[in-house]
């Protein structure tokens, strides 16, 4: 069954979505029926049996009817039994992973998603998968409980520390799909967003070939490497380079300038401050921003850190002066 977006449900883009939606609509219509039954009869009674001058008292005092009691106990029982079996059946389809599934490791951390692919490469906040191929997600958390939720795939699974949980899906078309964290995990909970990018299998192969994302071909300058890292390590989702504030402060003219911290003190941005901000972002929080930046400890190596710092410096006008000094020495 194919489902396009409706009043109730977003477009169903995984193979399982049709099954879930069918059940959803079955319950919906059954509920509408019972709701109208209750409300309809109530309204009818209210109008018909309202107290009137010519009928000041109740005209019937029946207080029991075994047949009715049996009917309105049994009919709902039968109905919910159908819903139960149907629901659990579909649930098992959501649980049992097809054998040929491609396994990808998902790690939740405050407040970021990390995806590790079979060939050793990884990506942040963006899960890239081939279309028409079952994907098995093996998930765990580095800190508190998160929940992996892609509405258009109708899947959701808590991501728990110290334990693996599993879910799977098979996307039916290419495109980008919203990924939410659905279990409350603190300040950055509503910003723990990501995308699932479904691509053709060729594209997927070349994505993997790009190697562990961000390891730019050597020979490039540090600044050029840093620029690449800026986009594929997802700094770009929170930091602009054009001077506009986003979730986080802009990188333009950051280096060498003073920033005010949330406790009111000020620091001048130097290399060590950048390093700390990336590896331990909660240590010094910039005033006017939420402390929601995830730590990149363990996600970028020293060399990549050098590249990022170089790139951030290049975005600042003060940088010229500084680097001249460095060359002068």
């Amino acid at each position, binding site marked *: 069954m194919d489902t396009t977006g409706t009043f109730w449900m977003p477009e169903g883009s995984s193979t399982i979505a049709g099954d879930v939606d069918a059940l959803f609509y079955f319950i919906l219509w059954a509920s509408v029926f019972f709701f109208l039954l209750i409300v309809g009869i109530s309204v009818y009674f209210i109008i018909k049996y309202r*107290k009137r001058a010519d009928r000041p008292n*109740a005209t019937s005092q029946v207080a029991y009817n075994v047949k009715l009691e049996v009917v309105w106990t049994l009919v709902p029982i039968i109905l919910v039994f159908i819903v139960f079996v149907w629901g*659990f059946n579909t*649930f098992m389809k959501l649980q049992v992973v097809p054998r040929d599934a491609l396994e990808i490791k998902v790690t939740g951390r405050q407040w970021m998603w990390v995806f590790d692919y079979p060939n050793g490469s990884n990506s942040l906040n963006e899960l890239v998968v081939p279309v028409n191929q079952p994907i098995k997600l093996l998930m765990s958390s580095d800190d508190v409980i998160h929940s992996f939720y892609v509405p258009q795939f109708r899947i959701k699974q808590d991501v728990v520390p110290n334990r693996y949980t599993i879910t799977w899906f098979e996307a039916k078309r290419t495109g980008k799909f919203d990924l939410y964290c659905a279990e409350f995990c603190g300040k950055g909970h*509503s910003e723990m967003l990501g995308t699932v990018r479904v691509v053709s299998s060729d594209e997927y192969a070349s994505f993997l070939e790009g190697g562990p994302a961000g390891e730019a071909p050597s020979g490039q300058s540090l600044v050029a490497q840093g620029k690449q890292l800026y986009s594929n390590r997802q700094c770009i989702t929170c930091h602009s380079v054009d001077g506009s504030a986003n979730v986080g402060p802009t990188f333009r003219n950051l280096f060498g300038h003073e920033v005010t911290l949330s406790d009111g003190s000020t620091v001048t941005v130097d290399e060590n401050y950048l390093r700390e901000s990336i590896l331990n972002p909660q240590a010094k929080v910039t005033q006017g921003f939420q402390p929601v930046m995830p730590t990149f400890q363990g996600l970028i190596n020293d060399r990549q850190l050098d590249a990022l710092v170089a790139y951030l410096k290049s975005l600042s006008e003060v940088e010229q002066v500084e680097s001249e000094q460095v060359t002068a020495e």
Partner: protein
Amino acid sequence: MSTETLSTAHGENKVNYLNAAHGIKSWLLTKDHKRIAILYLWSIMLMFLFGGLLALFLRLELLGPGPDLIQAKTYNQLFTLHGAIMIFMFIIPSVPAILGNFALPIQIGAKDVAFPRLNLASWYFYIIGSGLAVYAILAGSVDTGWTFYTPYSTQTTGAVITMVFAIFILGFSSIFTGLNFIATIHKLRAPGITWYKMPLFVWGIYATGIIQVLATPVLGITLVLLILERAFGIGIFDPAMGGDPVLFQHFFWFYSHPAVYIMILPGMGIISELVSTFSHRKIFGFKPIAYSSIAIAFLSFGVWGHHMFVSGQSQYATLIFSFLTFLVAIPSGVKMFNWVSTMYKGAITFETPMLFTLSFFFTFAIGGLTGIFLGATAVDVHVTDTYFVVAHFHYVMMGGTIMAFFGGLYYWWPKIWGRMYNEAWGQASALLVFVGFNFTFFPMFIMGTQGMPRRYFLYPEKYQILQVLSTGGSWILGLGLLIMAAVLLHAIKWGKKAGKNPWGALTLEWMVDSPPAPHNFEQIPTIEFGPYDHDKVLVEPDRAGAVT
């Protein structure tokens, strides 16, 4: 029909529980169940006002998708406090501690509850607990969500220990109330009030009492462990030390699912009274309604896992929890059908309490039926932890219990204060609350199925239209509640004198004066008719001068 002279002949110079003693001490040391009900009334309504204002503020922030008024951390504290206050300090004690305390002993012909001192103690525990909770808000606040899930709740900063301890104390209050009612109902019924001559409100409170004494201790011990975990790092819920955070969820819901029936059963009891009284007709299906309360009470202990379908619990557990969830819905349906049938060929009148009853039919049906979506495992996977769940529980709690509670407040108000409220304004408030409520919470169902997760400070722009609708609705709702508060408060001082039995109801509390005498009855009454025998007795409503 009735005249002013008649009304002065009633009451006025008679001693009642309100004028029997004066001074602060006579209230703070009272053992009279009716006065304790009044103490509870003011303190619980204060917490409701507080929790409600937090909600209005929270809705204001959600008007726009970005950070508009507050910080993420503040937002998280807002919904945590809103949820915790509404659940532990408002809805759980509301009906039993206010209306149950006031009406139940009179309804069964008793002079008081079995343990009046324990009853007063429960109020003091409530005050200490709520006071501690307010203190916790000042001393760093809490941002864990009302569910206190580990390991987040053991890691975050703030006054989590104080808050959890406050809820622990409130648990005692709840246990005392439940224990007291069970003993009262078993041992203090007047001769002639057999189990089947007992009003259904009493049945509802009885079933509630069972859950309160059976489930609350388990919450208590879970909270103690959480405190120890935070204070001493004992490691039971800490994954880094080999503990299991998901175990906390099991123990939390072992209490908190039954707790949702602690919330609804007393409300259902009220509805049974109201629908019969205002249809002026015998209740339809007394025994099915009575037994279904007990059935709900026991089944409620086997379904907690439906809050954890995506937590990674075993599929066998999910199978059983889902099945039992559906079973527990059946008795609620049985009640619903019996209530509606009670209106059949009645002589229905539409005073404010009845309007709230009709609202209840509408909103609780929606709330309950959406519970079926959630119980259906495959659908729950999609909608759990989204606004669909938020909509579901506001429809059952606010739209179910609280609608019934408001109806009950209006219904017993003349008995409590001896004065009528203004009917026209009362009806207007009921209407506004109904309209505002649906505007506030219906859009959330759509947001939820469209994928909007709950507890989101920022949200994607595509949900904004629905969020704005919802915020607008919350203002209508707030206005309705404001009018309701004005109507009720106005009545206490300036309302027309109420007669003994303004509604023509047949339960015992309507046979005594309004307000009742200090010990309710001069001597233990003898019972001539059952609580719903509208076929045998016809009582003319006696408003004694209340012409509104």
